């Protein structure tokens, strides 16, 4: 008798140390929320660094943020919000047992993830080509004010960590789609889809704060 | 550590008035801690003896006592706030330098201290200050974080690259006071020592006019002129911080090459070529060390331009010459 829930199509045998399946799912969900707190703190520390440096060097950061392209940022925000929406629809369709609809929604979500990364790729390659790089590698001639490279160190770290989490999220969604296809995840046991949904929404949440902070307010 | 007379309970001697009021707070905390230690650990041992099971003690069912618990929560809080208040009053005196303080620029770099007076004079690992005159050190670092600590004056501050930090003191005790580096800064962190030399008023005037001065209480160092050239070189090499990386023992494992057996011999450089170690080679390696880098050593030596003048250079070369 495995310690964790063994899933045979149709019925779900909850882990033997849990009282019942409902307790186990609630436990898993709360565990996910605790994990999301650690993500909040990790990404949040970067925001703290940004807020403090912006407060120390407002004019340098204002000049530097003009080099960012707000239109691409806006496009990415729309992309991520739509992907959050399709993710939610995916979760509710698996809860209703509509497997094919769920797979379709999850597929679109991953698709939007790719769109986001492609837009990110353009932004990064444009900057690297121009020489707008973090810290010591900054060789962009037009704007040579002091502390501008520091802005781009923070920009590349924050958007880089976020992009890394987007890639992780897309991997998780693909993994959960396989489990749905194999029938392991179903109407009775949809927790994996729900929790991967939480992770994706969190990634979108980070971008919701990142976009105005870096692109618009500067 | 020039203790002169070690103060009670191992504290260093009191070089300034701030040190006196500091010691009062320190001793208050010390006796308060001894009292609480006896209260807690003494109480514990007393209970251990009195309520031993083997002496027939029966356990009494007590769960808690709100009055007592409230008591030992509030009283420590009040006590701690008192300590904080007293501490803040002492701290204000320690950090706010009087506006008329004499300023000296201190530059910390890997493994030596440079002191720059207003008239431009630079001293390495030693600084002369007048007695009973407030002196303010404005400090910055050229490479990594160092820490500037004068135990006798109870002052300490990190020396951080990219920003200025300051300490101030009004030395009461003439004589030498030890300075330590207290923020880990690399291989010779523990050799990055300096001395604050406090001079009486007349000696201070003599020093300002550039005359050599004998510091009270310090070992009478023969003034430079009475020493032979190699002995002067030896003293300078120690004073200028060279011994932090180089040595005269012949051990090649240091951060910089050894002086022993250097003069007149061929030196293999990093780029494969070899050059004879003559006066010009030694002068150039001191003034602009990056010009020729010896094989197997990292090019980390700072330029000593403006720190080692011509007379000192001749003494150092003579000293190295004497180490065959």
């Amino acid at each position, binding site marked *: *008798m495995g310690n964790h829930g063994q899933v045979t199509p149709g019925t779900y045998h909850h882990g033997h140390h849990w009282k019942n399946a409902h307790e186990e799912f609630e436990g898993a969900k709360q565990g996910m929320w605790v994990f999301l707190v650690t993500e909040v703190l990790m990404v949040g520390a970067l925001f703290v660094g940004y807020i403090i440096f912006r407060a120390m060097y407002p004019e340098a950061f204002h000049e530097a943020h003009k080099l960012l392209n*707000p239109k691409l940022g806006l496009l990415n925000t729309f992309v991520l919000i739509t992907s959050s929406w399709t993710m939610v629809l995916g979760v509710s369709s698996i809860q209703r047992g509509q497997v094919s609809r769920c797979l379709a929604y999850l597929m679109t979500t991953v698709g939007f993830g790719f769109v986001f990364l492609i837009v990110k790729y353009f932004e990064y390659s444009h900057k690297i080509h121009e020489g707008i790089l973090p810290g010591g590698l900054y060789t962009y001639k037009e704007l040579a004010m*002091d502390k501008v490279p520091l802005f781009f160190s923070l920009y590349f770290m924050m958007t880089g960590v976020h992009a890394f989490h987007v890639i992780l999220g897309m991997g998780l969604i693909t993994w959960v789609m396989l489990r749905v296809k194999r029938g392991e995840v179903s109407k009775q046991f949809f927790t994996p889809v729900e929790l991967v949904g939480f992770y994706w929404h969190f990634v979108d949440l980070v971008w919701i704060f990142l976009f105005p902070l870096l692109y618009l307010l500067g | 550590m020039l203790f002169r007379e070690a103060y009670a309970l191992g504290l260093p001697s009191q070089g300034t008035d701030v040190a006196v009021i500091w010691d009062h707070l320190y001793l208050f905390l010390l006796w308060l801690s001894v009292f609480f230690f006896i209260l807690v650990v003494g109480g514990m041992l007393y209970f251990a003896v009195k309520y031993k099971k083997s002496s027939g003690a029966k356990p009494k069912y007590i769960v808690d006592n709100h009055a007592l618990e409230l008591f030992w929560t509030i009283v420590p809080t009040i006590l701690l706030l008192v300590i904080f208040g007293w501490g803040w009053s002492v701290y204000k005196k320690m950090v706010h330098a009087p506006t008329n303080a004499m300023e000296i620029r201190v530059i910390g770099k890997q493994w030596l201290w440079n002191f720059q007076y207003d008239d*431009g004079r630079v001293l390495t690992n030693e600084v002369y200050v007048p007695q009973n005159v407030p002196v303010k050190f404005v400090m910055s670092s050229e490479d990594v974080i160092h820490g500037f600590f004068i135990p006798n004056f109870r002052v300490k501050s990190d020396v951080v690259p990219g920003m200025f930090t300051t300490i101030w003191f009004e030395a009461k005790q003439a004589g030498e006071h030890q300075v330590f580096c207290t923020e880990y800064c690399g291989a010779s962190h523990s050799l990055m020592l300096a001395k604050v030399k406090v001079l009486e008023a007349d000696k201070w005037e003599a020093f300002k006019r550039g005359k050599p001065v004998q510091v009270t209480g310090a070992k009478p160092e023969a003034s430079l002129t009475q020493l032979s050239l190699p002995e002067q070189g030896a003293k300078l090499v120690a004073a200028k911080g060279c011994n932090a990386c180089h040595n005269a023992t012949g051990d090649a494992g240091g951060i910089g090459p050894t002086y022993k057996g250097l003069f007149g011999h061929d030196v293999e450089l*990093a780029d494969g070529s070899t050059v004879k170690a003559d006066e010009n080679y030694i002068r150039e390696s001191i003034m602009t060390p990056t010009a020729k880098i010896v094989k197997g050593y990292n090019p980390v*030596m700072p330029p000593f331009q403006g720190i080692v003048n011509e007379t000192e250079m001749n003494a150092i070369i003579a000293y190295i010459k004497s180490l065959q």
Partner: protein
Amino acid sequence: MANDHNHDSSHGHHYILPDGVAFKAFAALLVLTVITFALSFVHLGSLNYVVGMLVACVKATIVVGVFMNLRKDDPSNTVIFASGFVFLAIFVVLTSTDLLFRGNVYTNNKPIFKAIAGPSKFKKPWEPTPELVAHGKDVFSQQCVSCHGAAGEGNGPAAAALNPHPRNFTQDAGWKNGRKPSQIFKTLKEGIAGGAMASFATLPMDDRWALSHYVASIGPNILKDETADLAKIGVDPTKDSAGSDAAPSVPVEWAMKKLVQEAGAGSGKQVVPGASDSLMHYGDRLDAATFSKQKP
């Protein structure tokens, strides 16, 4: 195992988010994003900042409340998630009590600028203005007095030991690079090869221009820079600022290339073994002065 296995097949009661509610939330998020974007063009000063963050918080609450279903969930999850932000707030507030309240360090009752070069404060610094010359005098007393003396006659306390003797600014004779401000600026940036005049490239650019104008003003007659002189040192007079050339330290690879040329070692491998990481250590020793020395 003693305990039995109840085959609890269903999830008991669980809330499925109706598609209608999901769409309304999605629409709200899109609208709010457009509002944020539009607001960024309206210039409200610091208020701009507050509004931007408020809208972001509203959007975040929608995502967390509706999409992540915290509305209908066990309230302890909300407490857990909110605690993350509380401790972030503590982190920001207490760290900024240090970084934002350091204030300047005062010397001779004047605040000295932070050791790191701040953004250039003077427009077109290559044009002499009384304010620049005064700032030049101030920097001169801190940096140049030890060799060139208080009045610039080249008789500072350290001058006796220097060979060749430091320049006497009050006379016209003996200037290697010339007495025009742009030429003095070049000397300040690169130092003089073979002499005791080190490079002062680590000084912020404004200080160096100010010094150039002050030193030029000591001399018998004040010479003017033409655009040709300025072009020689890469300054385009039409622009406001000449960019900052005082890179206190340079990218490691570029430095490595430079060191190899300087040591005349042909290919990279003959440089000091293990030079790459020692170079990192060497990085902070690197300043423009080292590169200015042409091999004699």
